[in-house]
């Protein structure tokens, strides 16, 4: 538990401050978009959520590699928590994007838009991660198979992103690129602050999730030491690392 609780208070305060600053910048500093007007403010929550969730899925794959290399259960836990948090963030990004689409295009969803559909495919792919874990009873095998799944799907995320960027038929705006994009500086400041705030939120919640899981494992260990194996409530099959 100690490894994940360390720095948790500082991280929580930094996240709260950054979220407040980013909201203030978005609503009181960044100018209104000339084309879209006020609805463009959704951009500052939708894009950071999407970017951080995709990065989190890839990070889950990187942790999966570390688990297969070392066999240390903590990497399996990190991989599990990164994918778990990314799923939550991606649902948030998807909902925010859908609301923006309704306001801008008049539709909640556009099936012919490759950016939206590819993002949905990535989310659905990672939705199968937990059922996969749940279907395997042996914890050792569960962790190994989950790591392989995380690596393969984690590698799919950047490939999918690049393929969609190469697509020519899209409605979805392209405001960011390697040259810095076509945002004015004031919008860029608000956007990068929001991105940092959401990334910090991801890191903080992931640490809380890991701390909670480790506390649970530690409590079970204590119960076993005090009362013996018979006193443990049957755990059953679980998707979370044990």
């Amino acid at each position, binding site marked *: 538990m100690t490894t994940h609780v360390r720095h948790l208070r500082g991280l929580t305060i930094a996240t709260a401050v950054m979220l407040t600053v980013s909201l203030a910048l978005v*609503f*009181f*500093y960044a*100018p*209104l978009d000339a084309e879209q*007007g*006020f*609805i463009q*403010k*959704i951009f500052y*929550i*939708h894009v950071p*959520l999407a970017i951080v969730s995709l990065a989190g899925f890839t990070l889950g794959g990187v942790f999966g590699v570390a688990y297969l290399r070392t066999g240390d259960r903590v990497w399996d836990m990190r991989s599990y928590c990164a994918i778990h948090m990314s799923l*939550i963030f991606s*649902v*948030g990004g998807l*909902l*925010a994007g859908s*609301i*923006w689409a*309704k*306001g801008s295009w008049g539709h909640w969803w556009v099936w012919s838009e490759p950016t939206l559909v590819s993002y949905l495919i990535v989310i659905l792919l990672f939705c199968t991660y937990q059922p996969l874990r749940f279907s395997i009873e042996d914890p050792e095998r569960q962790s190994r198979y989950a790591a392989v799944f995380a690596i393969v799907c984690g590698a799919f995320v950047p490939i999918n992103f690049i393929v969609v960027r190469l697509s020519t038929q899209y409605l979805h705006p392209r405001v960011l690129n390697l040259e810095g994009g076509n945002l004015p500086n004031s919008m860029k400041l608000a956007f990068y602050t929001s991105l940092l705030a959401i990334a910090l*939120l991801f890191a903080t*919640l992931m640490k*809380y*999730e890991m701390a*909670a899981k480790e*506390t*649970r494992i530690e*409590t079970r260990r*204590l*119960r076993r030491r*005090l*009362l013996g194996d018979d006193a443990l409530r049957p755990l059953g099959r679980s998707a979370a690392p044990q």
Partner: protein
Amino acid sequence: MITFFAQAPALPLHTAGKYVAGAYIVFILMLIVYVGIMVRRLHTNQREIQELKLLLEERERQELAAPQPLPDSEQVA
């Protein structure tokens, strides 16, 4: 802070305000639900730790109350 808000541009909530509010409310609601789940889990853990603490205290009390074995010298005598 008051000066900052006084100089800040007014938010044009009448046009696309409901969509912007909707997107941010969804985000905040998800955050609240997640934190709520974490709080519930924390309470469960605290309850279990409390239970274990009581069991440990009970066991220690029983050990103290049990008759102490005699020292080796007395047993010989």
